[in-house]
């Protein structure tokens, strides 16, 4: 009976986790063997960041079924709050506990913000919800850019105007310097830390999906009215999924921040463009499939590198590849063709075989 079903889902989840572990082991082996050049080496932490963001956004878009276009905002908050903490305690704490706490703070602050934003946002539906999340994402980016925080013997000084308004003492130190952001965050992010964050996020989401809570969240996606008629607390589960997703995005942001010498809230890093890129991962990965989202994130992050030999044409090719992949993956005829000719699609699991 259901035993078969349970093992099948568990097997799938184990497969995803095994895939991550094997990938990690292979990369580590290649690095030890000196097969990874410094450029590729530098890509490893961003890869983990983007894959974690894909897991986070998939929870909202694929599993809860609400379109969020502001996830870069949560990552931004996680990045700045954790970097702020690390700067404040750079001298007074050891690296490991400090970084661990920084990551938790990144997740916590983003989670609190996600909760607060979720209260108004989750009352809306469809495209209206999407545009409001986009708006919140842009507001976060904008506010971070006018935030000045400094520290001196008297404590912390905060201003939204300019550096001078802080009234910092001579020996004071700027921590967040408006549009210049935070400079000199300790470089604590390593591939191993990134991998652990990705792995933990993946396990949390997969275990949750395959449980009472996950089914309730998916029931809201599939039919909100039926879910309510069965006594599923719709609003509470929406908030839960949205907040958890923000927490994961915040942790990814912390990882991101501790990999940069200067953390600036530019549109390219934390604007809607970035949020949309995360959405591309989720949709290309097959909407709802955590594994697909991770693979899509990795492929799309590496694609520009692979295309480097194309020089100026690489982003053009990237765009064409994206359009073609979308059409091949989603056009009803090509879908039927793929289904008929190969039992295993090239990656991820589509909607209908879940």
């Amino acid at each position, binding site marked *: 009976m259901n035993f078969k079903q349970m093992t099948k889902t568990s097997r799938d989840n184990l497969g995803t986790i095994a895939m991550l572990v094997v990938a990690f082991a292979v990369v580590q082996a290649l690095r030890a063997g000196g097969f990874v050049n410094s450029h590729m080496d530098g890509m490893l932490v961003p890869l983990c960041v983007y894959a974690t963001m894909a897991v986070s956004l998939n929870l909202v878009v694929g599993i809860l079924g609400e379109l969020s276009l502001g996830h870069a905002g949560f990552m931004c908050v996680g990045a700045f709050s954790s970097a702020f903490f690390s700067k404040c305690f750079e001298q007074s704490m050891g690296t490991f506990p400090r970084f661990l706490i920084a990551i938790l703070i990144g997740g916590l602050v983003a989670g609190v913000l996600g909760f607060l934003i979720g209260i108004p946002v989750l009352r809306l539906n469809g495209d209206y919800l999407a545009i409001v999340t986009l708006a919140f994402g842009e507001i976060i980016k904008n506010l971070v850019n006018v935030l000045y925080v400094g520290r001196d013997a008297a404590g912390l000084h905060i201003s939204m105007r300019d550096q001078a308004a802080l009234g910092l003492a001579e020996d004071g130190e700027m921590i967040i310097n408006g549009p210049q952001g935070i400079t000199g965050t300790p470089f604590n992010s390593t591939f191993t830390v990134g991998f652990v964050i990705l792995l933990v996020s993946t396990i949390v989401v997969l275990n949750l999906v395959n*449980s*009472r809570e996950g089914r309730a969240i998916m029931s809201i996606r599939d039919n909100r009215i039926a879910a309510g*008629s*069965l*006594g599923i607390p719709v609003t509470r589960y929406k908030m839960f999924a949205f907040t958890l997703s923000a927490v994961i995005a915040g942790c990814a942001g912390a990882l991101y921040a501790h990999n940069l010498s200067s953390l600036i809230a530019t549109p390219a890093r934390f604007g809607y463009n970035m949020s949309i890129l995360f959405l591309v991962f989720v949709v290309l990965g097959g909407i709802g499939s955590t594994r697909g989202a991770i693979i899509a994130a990795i492929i799309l992050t590496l694609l520009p590198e692979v295309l480097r030999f194309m020089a100026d044409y690489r982003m053009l090719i990237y765009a064409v590849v994206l359009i073609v992949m979308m059409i091949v993956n989603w056009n009803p005829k090509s879908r039927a063709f793929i289904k008929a000719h190969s039992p295993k699609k090239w990656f991820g699991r589509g909607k*209908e075989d879940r």
Partner: protein
Amino acid sequence: MALLEINNLSIQFGGLRAVDDFNLTVEQGELYGLIGPNGAGKTTVFNLLTGEYKPTEGVILLDGKDITGKSAIEINRAGVARTFQNIRLFKQQSVLDNVKIGLHNRYPYSAVSAVLRLPSYYATEKQMNEKAMELLHVFDLDGEANTLSSNLPYGKQRKLEIARAMATEPKLLLLDEPAAGMNPNETEELMEDIRYIRENFGMTILLIEHDMRLVSGICEKLTVLNFGRILTQGETKEVLADPEVIKAYLGDE
């Protein structure tokens, strides 16, 4: 005391009184039919009963407790479950999972034990699976537990919706046109199933139906709605013999 007591229920949409001065008493264990021509306001009554709409006037008592104007979620927890005229399954989930979502509030465990896969997760999931399979078995759906619910044939989708509603262990089950789209054989099976769950699960059932064979075959009492108002109510046989009812269905002459 009656299980369900509705007094003077009305709802106004703009200038239209879709349901007007509706009264109904359903006793514990009864199988009660709500019939009437299309657009008479039957589904609106269900929507009022389940909290999808808020009534303009009137009181709804379930087991003596006032549930008027409560949310759909609260009303389900108070003991009312329903099916929908336009089937509302969780299409991207399996047949089994559809029923397990119905069991959500009956078999709780925390999100933490789900994430950490604590023993309470495994134990409760096992109980849920057993209970869900038991319900599916009633409707002969246990063989298709792992099928994606949207892949079921139409008649089975309707049955799955009943099983899912029953999973919330309601005192009162509302079925909105359960036989719509079924062939005579399927309808026959459905009638047996409805009788079976009433006997074995102690369910009180209120149903909307157009299929007169089903209505006359299993309902003990009927209320006929026409243009939002009660035309007549009483024992099935008497109601169906009422010339007013025949007129409402077949028109004048």
